[in-house]
């Protein structure tokens, strides 16, 4: 009896595991609920009917600094927020990591940068980041009003931490929106993101 129970346990442990969900453009964007920096709950479901941009950030990362110090990220946020796009800045740095910022610190940094994101949130347990397989900062996602992921990847095609490169770069988010507005499919729905590794907890 005991032996049977032991075997059963051992074999249950060996039961097939589902593969890690990895959303692809063209598929439904994984649902999530986040608490924003002011403590309000935000869920993707509530934002249905609107375009949503997810921007993974980490103020300590030179690649994030490139896009904020050059004013590039803020101008994108302003431009699309004005068009009714919900722009969500997410920081998935684990609380145990030295680069972790408390909600108030994150808020202060965004304020100083003059960020114009509609929503900003922490994801210290990495749930949302892992659901989207976000790997770096900045890692960018665009979700259409039907909740379908239409773009995932880099912010632009100049892989550097040099703010001077922003001007000559082809911005993939801008390109995606231009195509979407024109009723065309996104020509580059998925690109290789560049930046600093997201500091997920282990």
């Amino acid at each position, binding site marked *: 009896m005991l032996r049977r129970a032991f075997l059963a346990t051992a*074999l249950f442990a060996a*039961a*097939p595991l589902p593969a890690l969900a990895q959303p*692809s453009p063209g598929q439904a964007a994984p649902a999530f609920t986040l608490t924003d920096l002011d403590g309000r709950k935000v869920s993707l479901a509530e934002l249905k009917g609107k375009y949503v941009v997810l921007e993974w950030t980490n103020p300590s990362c030179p690649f994030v600094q490139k896009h904020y110090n050059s004013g590039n990220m803020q101008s994108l946020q302003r431009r699309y927020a004005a068009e009714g796009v919900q722009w969500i800045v997410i920081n998935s740095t684990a609380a145990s990591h030295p680069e972790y910022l408390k909600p108030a610190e994150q808020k202060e940094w965004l304020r100083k940068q003059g960020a114009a994101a509609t929503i900003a949130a922490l994801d210290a347990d990495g749930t949302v980041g892992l659901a989207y397989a976000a*790997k770096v900062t900045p890692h960018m996602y665009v979700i259409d009003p039907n909740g379908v992921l239409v773009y995932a990847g880099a912010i632009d095609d100049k892989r*550097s931490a040099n703010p001077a490169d922003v001007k000559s770069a082809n911005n993939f988010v801008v390109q995606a929106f231009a195509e979407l507005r024109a009723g065309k499919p996104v020509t580059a729905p*998925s690109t290789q993101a560049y*930046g*600093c590794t997201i500091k997920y907890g282990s």
Partner: protein
Amino acid sequence: MTFLLRIYLAVALLLAAATAGAQSVRVDHAEAELVAAVDAIVPGQPLSVGLVIRHDPHWHTYWRIPGDSGLPTTIDWQLPAGFAAGPIEWPVPKRLPIGPLMNFGFEGELLLPVQLAVPADIAPGQTVQLKARADWLICKEVCIPGGADLQLALPVRASAAPSRYAGLFAGTRAQVPQPTTLEAASATIEDGRVRLVYRPASLVQQLEFFPIEEARIEPAAAQTLRADADGTALYLTAVQPVAAEFTRLKGVLVVNGGPAASDKGGWAGEIDLPLLAGVVPQMSASVPATVGVGGGAAAVTFWVALAGAFVGGLILNLMPCVFPVLSLKLLSLMQHQRTEDEARLPHASLRAHGGAFAAGVLLCFVLLAGLLIGLRAAGEQLGWGFQLQTPWVIAALTLLFFLIGLNLFGAFEFSFGGALASSGAAQRLQGDRLSGSFATGVLAVVVAAPCTAPFMGAALGYAVTQPAPIALAVFAMLGVGMATPYVALTSMPALLGRLPRPGVWMLRFKQVMAFPMFATCVWLLWVLSQQVGVDGVALVLGGLVLAALAAWAFGLSQAGARRWRWVALATAPLALYAVFAMTGPGAAPARGGLAKAGDAAGWQPWSRSAQEAQVAAGKPVFVDFTAAWCVTCQANKRLVLSSETVHAAFDRHGVTLMRADWTNRNDEITRELARFNRNGVPLYVLYDRGGATYVLPELLTERIVLDALGRL
């Protein structure tokens, strides 16, 4: 300021000219320098130069493909007219895991070599300034973009001597993978699962793949090494969504630890193979033979397999066909230990018995492993159960179990050693109890063969697909596990003393133990009936009656009635003849098993093509890989697969049920099992409508099957 700088540069140039080096630059957490392999530029001769980065401990920079994050180091040359720089010759990188992500990069001292073309018309005697802007991203917990403007001054001479960096260049060049053509290589992709297979010239224990194109292979995904029928295979995971341009598998293959482990057969090569659509099995968590790559994971898996084999061996002791043999041996030892105190076996002798038993078990397992490996090498597609696919082996086992049963009843006495050895040696063995213990060990393994313990299939599947030394080690570990309780009891007689006191119960116990033996006979005969039909079984049963007569007569002769011995000697050959007449190696097995098993309500006989047709038609398929001689299979079939609940669930989900019957040898099934990294049955596979595969555990419960169906 400018003046000082000029003086500084002049001095630096003099030094550089003397040493063929350059000033190194210290930037955040690294020191960078341009270096050359020789001390002078020779007109018209290619020049080996390179960027050296000395990282602070635990800091790293990145390879040409940095992985999930990071940036590759770049070198932008500013060279005098006529000079031209080749690409960076990247050495093999390290895998640098960061949480759930993976980077490819370098730590410690790194040289990135570059070949420079030197103009032929350059005049000797002058000094040439080679300049380069190097940029990199250096990371530990945080990342810092780094860069430096570097220069190297070299004199032009008619000939050059090695510089002090020549050794570093030689060492690094050995690390740079060259384009390689692998023997019988191919790459296939299915549903984001990528399989690279080739026929290695020598043993492959570790394989790592580094993609040299971005967004093709998921950097952090496990890479699974497996020995498949068509060669050594590495299973990779493609980046989702799979890029339309992903039509070739390009990357660096690092074999057995790479060039750094060249003394152990390590090397690396760059490969470029067309990537074709094809069948790529899913590497499910329940497939045990996954050998992780990098960081000694292969070794870890090896130890896990050894531990699994040990536990499997322990469990073998409890199997109904092994337990009686072991209990008997223990009983006989206890008699010596307890009944006649003055005649106690000394502890040392007890231990010797334990050792002899262990040696018998081990030898047997290692021989079995050797046989299996040998047969595989000979190109035979055989599995663990192969003994039981041969009718004469089953007939012989039936006879063996029947005789053991008679012996337990007390019809005659024999030492197990004597039973296995020729009759002439029987007397000697009876006096020589150590060899009796040894033979008990051998016998225990022989009788264990039909009882494929749940762990066995996996451990054996692992062992048989591994290189011979590992396979032998795993088999030996099975033996160690099996022998352990026995050795423990004999080396700690105190434990033996804790066993119940001997008495009449022992005789009863011994007799009771005959029943599992006879039950085993019934089951073996049932298996045999599927192979040789009713007539064959009738003949074997007749043989058993003759064997009983011979055994009884032999028992009488042992009791002193010497003339009965002739009856035994006369009947025994007749018994053997009857048992093997229709089951012998020459006898053709009746191929009825498959059709019969398939006839069972709702089950179709399995074939690869039929299964693929069903999946293609959008139907989920459940395949039961089974054999009549496999106890676990039969238990699962009776208790779970045939239950009302499970049947209703199969119906509800519209599952096509298929049964692959491995009772007789069937190469198609053997190959299919190998695809799942198995070498025996049971195996339960559920294909969903999309063709995704779920491998169920070997010991089924209704819950497990219903849960699996719930995924459809």
